[in-house]
């Protein structure tokens, strides 16, 4: 069990409440849950890394609990009641050094201090679709939702938002433009924030200036954008919509760079690898897809049997898996495979936990192509 969870590089939360781990190097997928006690109210809404070195995954489920999954041990190590389900589902989950930040749809943002029961509560307004934490300044979060503009909060001074976006000017018919923030991203090394909306716009805000309206707006397609992720080279952003269209967008001019093909259902979760040019996407079509951002080709495609809500990439292990895939010496690869094979048999014999794992075939789409590129 532990060995299985240690080789997993991509973690996914499904609508059926199952936490899934995928190892791209071994082309295997595992379920980490008890199949006997499945229920729909365990549906995974949000996921986040519990600590810096990515040994814990925090899973926020529909019934208002946040469970901790240890990737080293491969078991759930703890759970915590964070709000009741009547407040709506989780829209965001984040950790700071000593506390846990949760946000629900009704707009109740709570900071749960470690070891104490008192919480800081902030009402950020109703209809929240997403809460995100600034990865560089971890006490700052941004919220936004339906008829709820982008707000930036400093959790050390939670009385008032430090930045509230202003709606764009009325349109050419002099009608108010509706607000619907669906996802938020912080541009690293700057104060800028990028959002995508349910009305297919991508907007960049700059809280450091006095301008409260977006400094850049781009229209993309005609369907609601559901997810957004910043790539490792700060200038581009990947967005997905409800028709399963993924596009990369250049933030300097707001132009589309290209589309990532292969999806057939709405995108629910999207994450770019922090260092490699890779993006993982999941959604209602029950597939995890990993695209390369360089040539926009589909690298991996894994069928995971349930509708997927969120995806979490590990920064270090995926890299090693990729090295495995693109290993230029075939023999070394084979040897490694042998090592892994032996390891696997041992773990299967020593399987004692009641939790069940299942293997699903991971189809590598463009492995050969990658090899060729590497040789060149």
């Amino acid at each position: 069990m532990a060995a299985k969870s240690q080789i997993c590089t991509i973690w996914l939360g499904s609508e059926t409440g199952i936490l899934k781990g995928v190892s791209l190097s071994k082309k295997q997928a595992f379920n980490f849950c008890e199949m006997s006690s499945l229920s729909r109210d365990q549906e995974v809404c949000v996921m986040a890394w519990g600590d810096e070195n990515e040994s814990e995954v925090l899973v926020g489920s529909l019934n208002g609990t946040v469970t901790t999954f240890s990737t080293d041990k491969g078991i759930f190590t703890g759970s915590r009641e964070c709000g009741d389900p009547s407040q709506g589902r989780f829209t965001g989950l984040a950790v700071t050094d000593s506390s846990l930040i949760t946000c629900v749809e009704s707009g109740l943002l709570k900071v749960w201090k470690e070891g104490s029961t008192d919480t800081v509560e902030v009402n950020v307004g109703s209809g929240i679709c997403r809460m995100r934490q600034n990865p560089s300044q971890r006490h700052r979060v941004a919220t936004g939702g339906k008829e709820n503009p982008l707000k930036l909060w400093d959790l050390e001074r939670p009385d008032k938002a430090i930045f509230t976006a202003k709606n764009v000017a009325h349109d050419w018919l002099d009608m108010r433009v509706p607000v619907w923030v669906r996802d938020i991203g912080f541009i690293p090394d700057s104060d800028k924030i990028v959002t995508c909306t349910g009305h297919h716009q991508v907007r960049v805000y700059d809280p450091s200036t006095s301008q409260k309206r977006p400094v850049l707006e781009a229209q993309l397609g005609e369907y609601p954008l559901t997810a957004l992720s910043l790539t490792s080279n700060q200038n581009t952003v990947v967005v997905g919509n409800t028709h399963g269209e993924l596009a990369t967008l250049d933030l300097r001019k707001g132009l589309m760079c290209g589309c990532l093909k292969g999806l057939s259902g709405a995108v629910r979760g999207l994450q770019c690898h922090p260092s490699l040019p890779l993006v993982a996407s999941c959604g209602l079509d029950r597939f995890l897809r990993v695209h390369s951002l360089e040539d926009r080709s589909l690298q991996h495609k894994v069928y995971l049997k349930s509708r997927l809500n969120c995806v979490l990439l590990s920064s270090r292990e995926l890299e090693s898996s990729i090295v495995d895939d693109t290993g230029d010496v075939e023999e070394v690869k084979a040897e490694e495979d042998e090592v892994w094979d032996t390891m696997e048999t041992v773990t299967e014999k020593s399987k004692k936990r009641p939790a069940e794992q299942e293997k699903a075939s991971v189809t590598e789409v463009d492995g050969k192509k990658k090899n060729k590129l590497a040789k060149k």
Partner: protein
Amino acid sequence: MDTTKLSTSDSVSKKKGKKAKKQVQSDEKPVVEMDAVSVVKEEKSTSGATFPPSFSMSEIKNKQRRHMMFIKLKQEKRKQKLELKKKIKREREALGDKAPPKEVPKTIENQRVYDETTVNPEDEEVAFDEGTDEFSAYFNRLTNPKVLITTSDRPRTRTVKFIEQLATVIPDAHVYYRRGLALKRVIPQCVSHGFTYLLVVNEDRKMPNGLVLCHLPDGPTAHFKVSGVRLRKEMKRIGKAPTEHTPEVILNNFTTRLGHTVGRLLAALFPHDPQFVGRQVATFHNQRDFVFFRFHRYIFKNEKRVGIQELGPRFTLKLRSLQKGTFDSKFGEYEWVHKRHEMDSCRRKFHL
């Protein structure tokens, strides 16, 4: 005398043909040329006309003559084919039991690309997913289907007739005139009146061409293309009008995860316990992603033979999209969208 002449001419023409090929680089394959030559041979024996050695039939200017020769060529080919067939048959008979087994013809269905979403009936996770989805209330016998059938605005005769006939196939179906109402406003009313399905037939140029099937109260919504509609009046040898008994339902070939969902969607249109007295059966047969609908009455003639009689109507459905939730084409989340240029690049890949 004749034979010698022919043989010489044949050889000459062959040689010259080859030369000509080198020089003129004609596009014809050698086989074709040989055939043309053989025709020339025959022509000579009958009429004695002489043709230039590098002869192709399309060079004949006279249309009637060209046509006649083409027919002859065809006949010749067919004869050869038949002879080959007979020969193989004779060989098989001669070999008797030792004959090699007949080859299975290649079709794009049996060459189908494996779909990894194909549902394994023992799969716990899929079973749980299906057991708790939106149709579980119907399959756990908690609800009975009640269907509202309507059309696009101002339907023409054919569409009206089509929905009337659909209403005779689906038990507990209520046909309503659309009255220019928006579907998003109709749906809450349907839910409050206890309908479990909203079925909308769209038309283009007086022909029904689209079908929106929305499961209530909370989705999913499927959008189908409708083609090949044949109403009862247009069908030959149809039986008497169907009775009010609830029909049996046959769902064929819905194997993938998406196919399962669509199959469940279609199955939940009909009430649970079929009345076998009516001897009526509705079939949804999936073949190459097209879902064929047929409605039959059957009779057991004796222990081995069954007679069927079609009752109509017939139509074919093709899934365009499957959307989570009730009808909302603008803001709804799609579980599956058919993308023509991306998905139809392989002819052997099927989604249902």
